[in-house]
């Protein structure tokens, strides 16, 4: 893998994480437990979607600069191959709507179903703590576009982190029922937290080039923040060490296929149109 390919994949990892998490959160819109929270969560979905768009636009720019033979090796999608054959350039929508699951690079955590408010809060919490420290580091990227997106996103993520940390505490230390639901969700989702710190080939290459973040450096910060909140929330840190993985390499859970079937429906059913 050469550096430009690594950089493209790296950018797509970030874009896919934001898109899929935003998609899941947007499923709550109109169904939240309290109107104020419905509105707050929809706002968060919008933030993630906005971040995804910035990353996809940046990825598309990188892709469009590649030589044709390199372009052809990037994605399996027949729809994208056709565009490449025709000499068309790609945009944010092509990348979001025309790749199949094996070309998606998001971590498994973000594609996990909402289930209930507890599962949703735990999933967001894991991601928000990670994103907070991650974007802080990414601001130093040698890729000016990535650094700029990180700076803008950090403001949003700071709010997300406050929101999910508060809900962890409120529900963990709320009623007996909410405590139990939170502990269950925490136990169930714990195995999806490890992949956040796995270094894919693209992660390694980009960290070395000073473009990406060495996520190993974030792990202790993530642990410390999570430990602090769990303690305040009177929740127990799960003991299991076994972690799920595969998303960063395009091996996903069964859930992603259904997300994409829904997300990509219009572009698949009515291809090559302007909306």
């Amino acid at each position, binding site marked *: 893998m050469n550096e430009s390919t690594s950089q493209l994949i790296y950018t797509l990892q970030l874009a896919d994480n934001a898109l899929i998490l935003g998609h899941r959160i947007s499923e709550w819109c109109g169904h939240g*437990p*309290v109107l104020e929270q419905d509105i707050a969560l929809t706002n968060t979905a*919008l933030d993630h979607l906005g971040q995804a768009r910035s990353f*996809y636009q940046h990825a598309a720019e990188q892709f469009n600069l590649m030589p044709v033979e390199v372009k052809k090796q990037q994605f399996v999608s027949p729809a994208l191959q056709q565009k490449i054959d025709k000499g068309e350039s790609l945009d944010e929508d092509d990348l979001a709507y025309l790749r199949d699951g094996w070309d998606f690079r998001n971590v498994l955590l973000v594609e996990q179903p909402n289930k209930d408010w507890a599962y949703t809060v735990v999933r967001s919490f894991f991601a928000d703590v990670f994103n907070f420290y991650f974007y802080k580091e990414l601001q130093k990227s040698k890729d000016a576009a990535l650094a700029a997106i990180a700076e803008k996103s950090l403001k949003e993520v700071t709010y997300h982190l406050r929101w999910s940390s508060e809900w962890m505490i*409120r*529900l963990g230390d709320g*009623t007996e029922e*909410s405590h139990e639901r939170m502990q269950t969700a925490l136990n169930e989702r714990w195995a999806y937290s490890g992949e956040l710190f796995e270094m894919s080939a693209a992660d390694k290459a980009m960290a070395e080039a000073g473009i990406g973040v060495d996520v190993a450096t974030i792990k202790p910060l993530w642990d410390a923040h999570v430990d602090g909140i769990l303690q305040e929330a009177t929740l127990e840190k799960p003991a299991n060490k076994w972690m799920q993985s595969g998303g960063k390499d395009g091996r996903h859970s069964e859930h992603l296929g259904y997300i994409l079937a829904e997300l990509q429906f219009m572009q698949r059913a*009515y291809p090559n149109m302007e*909306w």
Partner: protein
Amino acid sequence: MTVHSFQQHFDEKIDNDVAIEPRDWMPDDYRKTLIRQISQHAHSEIVGMLPEGNWITRAPSLRRKAVLLAKVQDEGGHGLYLYSAAETLGITRDEMYDQLHTGKAKYSSIFNYPTLTWADMGAIGWLVDGAAIMNQVPLCRTSYGPYARAMVRVCKEESFHQRQGYEIMMALANGTDVQKKLAQDALNRWWWPSIMMFGPPDDNSPNTAQSMRWRIKRFTNDELRQKFIDVTVEQAKLIGLTVPDPDLKWNEERGHYDYGAIDWTEFWDVVKGNGPCNKERLETRKKAWEEGAWVRDAALAYSKKRKARKENKKDNLAA
């Protein structure tokens, strides 16, 4: 002051366009009418999130998805302002929800129609929000202060919604044959329910006269409907779509469009609960509310605990 002079004072304010405020004396029926109207309006915003929420995960481009999310979020916000305005009249949000969930309170019947294609996002913005604006702009000057002020904010955002809807329709109408077909199909399905949104004709609208007297309402249902039709027919023409009314014709003498007979049987059927999605919409709202109960309980329990801990701390410091 006697009740009579309270009434006189109130009438003078109404006649002089002085806003009625929460602490002012008002006739019971005025209060009841407002609670009914404002809560119905708030419920419409909240139930109205559902038909459009349907398409958030399926929007055809990331830009459209972002705009739709923002729009549906705005509707939640409108619900919030309106519930707050209604609360100033002495009813709680929980009581209003209960009235919605038990079917005692109504919401706009338009949301009992299904959103079958992406073009429906265009049609709802253009027609449904367009009709809502016609209804709502006069409400910015309605006699009850908190309602009028809430409506000023609502109307600003609604005009953005109407534009985004029309823009979706325009993109479809300028698109491929199948996109034009999507647009026309959506107009066909949403046209009649949209013009029914203004409510029954004036000769069959029992609340209109009193509401006009109280300056809650400023125009009759038929006046607003006519205004909407006159504007919207021209907008349809502009993008090459056909309004599905064979009797639609410009009347030079009246300076308005004449339009065909509205099927009021359908309107009353849907109001009574027999629309395509009445059951689903209500069930969805109830489900969200019931499944959220443990979250609300926990939030309340936690805030009580926190308060108690703070007080304990204060006591300890004092001792």
